[in-house]
């Protein structure tokens, strides 16, 4: 039986396991993609997919079928990813010495990480530079930017996923772009 998201979510709320299975099958890949881009780690992303759907299963009675299931599951996935990132950051911060980072320091560090074109051309290094730069964004900036730039989601949907006003989502995307443009300047120069 082919379920639409709306029908499947409604049936899943009534306790139909087939309906929930259909939703898991349909949305797993996109949830994995988002989780990977949020965390930058394949194993973390796999764990987050499980955690996301487990939470969704337990909270399906709270799902308001007037909104899209895809948006709702993205919201859970984004929050689970942010929780993981925060807990990692806290651990790192506790371990790091106080002199390690300040707001200007990271930009200089990332921008001057290795400006030689030969080395920057290596995609692994570019990805690593991107991950470093993403790590320095606030939670809201990081999520809004990934959803807009890499996932192609519109501002209205991003606002629903993040549970913020559309203007706040717009500002977050803009601030993220500003910071990333500075951080990724060496990559941009090589590409031009």
């Amino acid at each position: 039986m082919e379920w639409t998201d709306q029908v499947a979510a409604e049936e899943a709320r009534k306790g139909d396991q087939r309906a929930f299975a259909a939703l898991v099958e349909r949305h797993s890949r996109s949830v994995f993609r988002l989780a990977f881009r949020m965390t930058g780690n394949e194993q973390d992303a796999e764990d987050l997919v499980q955690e996301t759907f487990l939470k969704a299963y337990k909270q399906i009675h709270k799902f308001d079928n007037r909104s899209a299931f895809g948006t709702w599951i993205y919201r859970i996935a984004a929050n689970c990813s942010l929780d993981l990132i925060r807990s990692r950051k806290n651990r790192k911060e506790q371990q790091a010495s106080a002199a390690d980072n300040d707001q200007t320091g990271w930009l200089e560090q990332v921008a001057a990480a290795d400006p030689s074109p030969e080395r920057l051309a290596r995609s692994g290094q570019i990805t690593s530079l991107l991950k470093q730069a993403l790590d320095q964004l606030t939670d809201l900036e990081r999520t809004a930017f990934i959803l807009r730039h890499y996932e192609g989601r519109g501002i209205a949907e991003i606002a629903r996923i993040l549970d913020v006003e559309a203007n706040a989502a717009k500002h977050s995307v803009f601030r993220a772009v500003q910071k990333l443009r500075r951080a990724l300047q060496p990559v941009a120069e090589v590409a031009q």
Partner: protein
Amino acid sequence: MTHLDEEQLTLAYYREVEAESLCHLEECAECKARFDRIKTSLDNFPEYPAPEREDSYGRDVWLRLVPQLPVKNRRRWLSWWTMAPAFASLVAIAFLAGMLTQRSRQIPAISAEARERVLLMAMSDHLERSQILLVELAHMPAGDGELKTERALARDLVGENRLLRETARSTGDMSRAALLDDLERVLLAIANGGADDLNAIKERMQGNDLLFKVRVMSANTRQEGQKL
């Protein structure tokens, strides 16, 4: 209209500004030049590809999720998902197995290819249901109920497994026959055992990597069936 600020220019790249701003951008050379710089920069942002996942990924996620679901619902799911198709498969397998093994030529309506396809799909379904049962048991803590649902399901699967194993053997498909042989022994142990035997069953499953083999064979069989 006043010139667009950097935020508006950035959002224009994503087409997230009002139509009026986009019109201005087309007409104003100064804004256009600033926009082009932002566009070049954003166009050159590195790709951030996520590792690819296969079409069957969603199903795998669900199979891994099932053991973590609250027990009552999990059991309910286990029973409908696995029992309902079993009877239909059994009928199909019995019919096709008879045709394949006896080389009957009295029913020309179905081509050999179609018969093989249906048989492969039935085999894949059987392996998937067996896999669900094995995953369920592998994650079940010791002393978790009397395994009534699991035993009933295993009994159903044993009959189906036997037919498939004999069919595989008679058609010379020895690798599938061998796996079904191993699977049948475990299914029988589940069907005839009690909750006390759970550890022994788990050990047997782990000893010959049964779950992994069933998973691989199930995926391969389905792929083969889909290609026909």
